[in-house]
């Protein structure tokens, strides 16, 4: 008898709709993420990629459809339950969103002190040092965000979410605005996080190198829906063919 190993689904999105006024951004998105899987969501600006991950962590609420994260229906959670869920879902912002008035160390310790009040000062310091070490920025811990480069800010932003030991990471354009070297560092960091911590992730990007390096599966979004998904080669080859057809038909119309 053939047995099929069923992988655990950590994010299950069905028929997701979201509009802002008359502008329909998401028009029926279906997406599943398995445990330990890195899913890259590709698409042009304005196709609702960032909106999608903001709905997943409860920053925005959908008009229709269901979003189940780690077995919890995000829309119907009480504030307390939503906070508990958010501790398991890390969010790395496009602009890093570091707290300007705090040092790197204070930035990382901030969510830890607020959510784990039972931790001693030494335990907090140890966890901050460990996570800074994992992003190779231990020596920057007393610097302020304004003194850091774009790539360093991104890494600190990721470290701040990692310190809570999340089960899922949501990366919003992690390599946007970075030079190629910093982009490679971020890509390898995302890859290492998956390997070391077994974290599942959704990576929003339009950077093909990032998609190729970090993703197990690619999801192509267009016009508020998932157009196609699969491996990097499958999606890209089909898309390039589609793009050629589109360009030729448009040019010779």
């Amino acid at each position, binding site marked *: 008898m053939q047995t099929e190993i069923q992988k655990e689904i950590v994010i299950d999105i069905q028929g997701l709709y979201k509009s802002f006024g008359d502008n329909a951004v998401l028009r029926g998105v279906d997406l599943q993420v398995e445990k330990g899987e890195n899913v890259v969501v590709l698409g042009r600006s304005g196709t609702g990629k960032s909106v999608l991950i903001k709905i997943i*962590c409860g*920053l925005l609420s959908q008009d229709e459809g269901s979003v189940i994260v780690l077995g919890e229906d995000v829309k119907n959670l009480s504030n307390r339950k939503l*906070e*508990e869920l*958010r*501790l398991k*879902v*890390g*969010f790395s*912002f*496009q*602009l890093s*969103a*570091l*707290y*300007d008035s705090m040092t790197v160390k204070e930035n990382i310790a*901030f*969510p830890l002190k*607020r*959510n784990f*009040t039972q931790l001693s000062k030494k335990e907090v310091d140890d966890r901050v040092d460990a996570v800074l070490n994992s992003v190779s920025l231990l020596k920057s811990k007393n610097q302020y965000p304004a003194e850091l480069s774009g790539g360093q800010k991104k890494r600190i*932003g990721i470290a*701040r*979410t990692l310190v*809570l030991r999340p089960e899922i990471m949501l990366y919003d354009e992690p390599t946007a605005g970075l030079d190629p070297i910093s982009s490679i560092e971020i890509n390898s960091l995302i890859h290492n996080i998956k390997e070391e911590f077994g974290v599942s992730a959704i990576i929003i990007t339009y950077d093909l190198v990032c998609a190729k390096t970090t993703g197990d599966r690619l999801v192509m979004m267009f016009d508020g829906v998932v157009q196609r998904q699969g491996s990097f080669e499958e999606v890209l080859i089909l898309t390039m063919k589609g793009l050629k057809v589109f360009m030729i038909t448009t040019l010779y119309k």
Partner: protein
Amino acid sequence: MEINTVGKQKYYLSKRMDGFFTNMARAFRFVLEYFAHLFRPPYEFREIVRQAYKIGVDSLPLISLTGFIIGVVFTKQSRPSLSDFGATSWLPSLIGIAVFKALAPLVTALICAGKVGSSIGAELGAMKVTEQIEAMDVSASKPYRYLVFTRVTACIIMVPLLMLFTSLVAMTGSYLNIHNNEHISLATFIAKSFDKINFLDFKASLIKALVFGFTIGMVACYNGFTTTRGTEGVGKAANAAVVTSMYLIFIEELVIVQIIGWFR
């Protein structure tokens, strides 16, 4: 064609009304949340103290200067009118009533609205447009408790203290002027200043300052928290924080004076 225009106007009017009431409901919820946090420890004492210190240090130079000038100028300008009736000995009482009952709470509140309100509005506005508030939210760090509750509480604590300080500085300015001209002693000045002020007046001023502090903090935080449209929005939030606070302070002054009048 005409029906179409009227229809459009109605549509836009209803849309604006809708927006107005939505904003009012959102603001009301924002204010209510403060009271919910008031009864829900733990409190961020360290941050409250830090904010209170910041408010005090920020406002102290301007408040000292304004308070002193008010005391001196008000005394100088009241003297001719009183001397016409040979009543210059009433100057300390007049200044005492004017400063404690009306000028100190109002002037302190207006200075704080300008100095503290704009600073909080701009700071939170900048945090909002750079997604720092969302970052706190997604890490379950309770941004309202850390950013709003602490700032509003600091304003509630500091505005009454600053009001007392303004009164003290204004009375000092007044005393120096009266001492130079009428040559009365400090003890006489103090006795005469407080002659016509009772405990109800003191309580009324304190209540006013508390309400003004709450208004300044709340309006500034709300405007910061609801900032949209990037850096342009930050400027607008700071401006709205000051202007709205000032309007509300004047309205509250009128209402509180009316209510206190019923208790006399």
